[in-house]
């Protein structure tokens, strides 16, 4: 007898089985390029990834200050968690910088999540989840570093290398463009940057022998505007720094997996580029390997490379230079500050990318020497096949991707510092698409490590103060007009330091380690500090001594008690 089936109907969206509101106020429709240009003039908002195009991660908000920070307390928290088998196994981490527009927060998570929240209460207004294939190659964790917001849309890059635009009121997809090849080992984790009528993103996959690129799309339609490769083809400028024969250039790396900064007067994007590939086997890629490990000034309209400075020519240590270039003017000069993985702080003239000053910012550096003009003399590196070589800093660098900040009030730079070494043993291998292409076996030290928040004077490169920690500091810093520097620890503590002395003034245990970018905003005159927490991702690279620590996925928001 035939079965008479009950009608189960149509599958419904998970969000319908929740109290999610489903719509956000139309705050984003008025976020124009002009407003983002002048983002610091509306400190109640955090309109773009770094807070402003200059990458300073500084807010003039000063309601929370040295005098009252001891009263800072949680205002609300947001949690999502992780259900079932998700992409990238369990290496997820909550790494984003929350964007806030007129009381509404837009923030992304691991595994394709994007949320709109009421920034006053934490109420979830809408959520979007891009379905991410489980088998996407992720070189450094199931993570996303944030969204961009403009003209009524929220832009996010997905792990499978799409750039998508969402309606900021509903969270529904408006357009979707693929900009990377997952079969080649490409992925995407970068927070997009809106510049003029474009949205700009870079590719991940530098451990898989891809060719790194930066892409610009029309903000309204998703139409491609330009793509710039960070490894030149034969015959192009810079190609002389790669072997003339063979295809080392085609597998050369140089990925742009961290958001650029932008100088609107010079019309230049400051793009940090990643390691050459294979990371540790330079024998198959003789030469300086431009434009890997470089700061590259790119014309925002055309994508053309205008100038560059290479921090670690012919890198043999995995010293990406993707990290931010902080733009600031000092003593009449247009400068850019860059803390490199290789352990040195570089102050550059950002009009031509010529070095002004170079200074170490971590205690232990033995991979090589760098003079005041940035010239490199390699000292310790994997060379002979099968011969283990120990060096400082390790491949996560003296500072990882997490961001430094600059306070125009104190005129100091503040950096999260990692003092940990590693051992690399060269093991040459042939290249195959989608297979990790390191050219070595690598083990980061499990012991004998340290960290700090360090304040450096950009005029001299000298350290002005240091707040020391037993383990490396692996999260972005935030400087405020309240003379505070906020810093999250791998062990879960969220700290407020005196920006002038480094004294620890306040601390809250968030329950899981920090590997994100805190931001600040205000609503009706009340200042808030927002910090995503959740330990995980590429822990084996930057702090393997805490591989066993618990994971998490909570966004904490702090404020002073209401009177």
């Amino acid at each position, binding site marked *: 007898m035939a079965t008479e089936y009950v009608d189960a109907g149509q599958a419904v969206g998970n969000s319908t089985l929740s109290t999610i509101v489903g719509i956000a106020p139309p705050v984003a429709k008025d976020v124009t390029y002009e407003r983002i240009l002048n983002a610091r003039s509306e400190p109640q908002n955090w309109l773009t990834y770094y807070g402003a195009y200059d990458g300073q991660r500084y807010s003039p908000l000063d309601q929370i200050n040295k005098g009252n920070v001891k009263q800072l307390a949680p205002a609300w928290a947001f949690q999502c968690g992780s259900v079932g*088998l998700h992409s990238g196994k369990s290496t997820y981490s909550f790494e984003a910088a929350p964007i806030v527009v007129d009381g509404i927060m837009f923030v992304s998570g691991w595994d394709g999540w994007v949320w709109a929240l009421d920034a006053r209460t934490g109420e979830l207004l809408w959520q979007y989840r891009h*379905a991410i294939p489980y088998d996407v190659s992720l070189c450094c964790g199931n993570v996303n570093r944030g969204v961009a917001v403009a003209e009524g849309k929220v832009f996010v890059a997905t792990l499978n290398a799409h750039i998508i635009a969402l309606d900021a009121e509903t969270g529904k*997809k408006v357009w979707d*463009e693929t*900009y990377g*090849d997952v079969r080649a080992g490409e992925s995407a984790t970068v927070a997009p940057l809106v510049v003029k009528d474009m949205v700009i993103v870079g590719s991940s996959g530098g451990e898989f022998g891809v060719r790194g*690129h930066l892409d610009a799309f029309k903000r309204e339609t998703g139409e491609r505007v330009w793509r710039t*490769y960070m490894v030149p083809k034969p015959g192009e400028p810079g190609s002389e720094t790669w072997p003339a024969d063979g295809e080392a250039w085609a597998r050369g790396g140089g990925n742009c997996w961290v958001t650029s900064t932008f100088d609107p007067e010079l019309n230049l994007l400051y793009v940090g580029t990643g390691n050459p590939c294979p990371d540790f086997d330079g024998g198959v890629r003789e030469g300086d390997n431009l434009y890997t490990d470089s700061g590259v000034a790119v014309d925002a309209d055309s994508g053309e490379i205008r100038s560059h400075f290479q921090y670690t020519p012919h890198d043999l240590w995995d010293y990406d230079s993707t990290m931010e270039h902080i733009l600031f003017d000092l003593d009449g000069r247009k400068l850019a500050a860059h803390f490199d993985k290789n352990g040195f702080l570089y102050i550059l003239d950002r009009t031509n990318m010529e070095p002004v000053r170079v200074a170490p910012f971590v205690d232990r550096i033995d991979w090589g020497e760098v003079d005041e003009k940035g010239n490199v003399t390699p000292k310790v590196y994997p060379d002979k096949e099968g011969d283990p070589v120990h060096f400082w800093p390790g491949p996560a660098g003296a500072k990882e991707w997490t961001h430094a900040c600059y306070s125009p009030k104190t005129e100091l730079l503040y950096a999260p510092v990692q003092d940990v070494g590693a051992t690399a043993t060269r093991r040459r291998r042939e*290249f*195959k698409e989608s297979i990790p292409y390191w050219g070595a076996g690598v083990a980061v030290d499990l012991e004998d490590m340290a960290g700090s928040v360090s304040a450096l004077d950009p005029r001299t490169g000298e350290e002005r103060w240091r707040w020391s920690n037993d383990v490396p500091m692996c999260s972005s810093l935030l400087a405020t007009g309240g003379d505070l520097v906020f810093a999250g620890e791998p062990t879960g503590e969220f700290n407020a330091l005196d920006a002038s002395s480094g004294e620890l003034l306040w601390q809250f245990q968030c329950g899981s380690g920090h590997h994100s970018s805190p931001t600040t905003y205000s609503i009706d005159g009340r200042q808030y500090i927002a910090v995503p927490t959740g330990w995980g991702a590429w822990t084996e690279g930057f702090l393997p001594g805490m591989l066993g620590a618990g994971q998490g996925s909570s966004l904490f928001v702090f404020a002073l008690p209401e009177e």
Partner: protein
Amino acid sequence: MAEIAELLDRQNGATLGRMLGRGSIGEAEEGSDGRMRATIRIPEDELVFEPGILVLPHGGELELEFFNDDKNTHCAVLPCNGDYKFIWLVNHSRGTANLTLDGPGYYWYGSRTGNDEGRGLTAAIVVQGDAPPEARLDRPPQPRP
């Protein structure tokens, strides 16, 4: 070895439940409208979706028709761009799910209700294809594994 393989493929064999990634392989059919369609069944007392691996020729719109032939209640929590899709599948029920998925790559889906809260019923959707030409790297063809 064949005996062990068989025991890995069913409830209360070598393992408590079927190992991930096992079961039969099915293919979605593509209609003239470009939509792909397939049928998924939950057979009696096996605690699995069949086929265990559903293969799509490329990313896009997929319409799944579910039949629960089991004497117990299950559900399906499915990947879809925008939001997970949920369908409750009581004993002897049928329903549909419309999904949008990228390719290439594969996705897991499962049941999380009806005493499936542990390992659940778990199956895979495999999407073939390549990134579009404009997204690929400008370089000569490279060796693949």
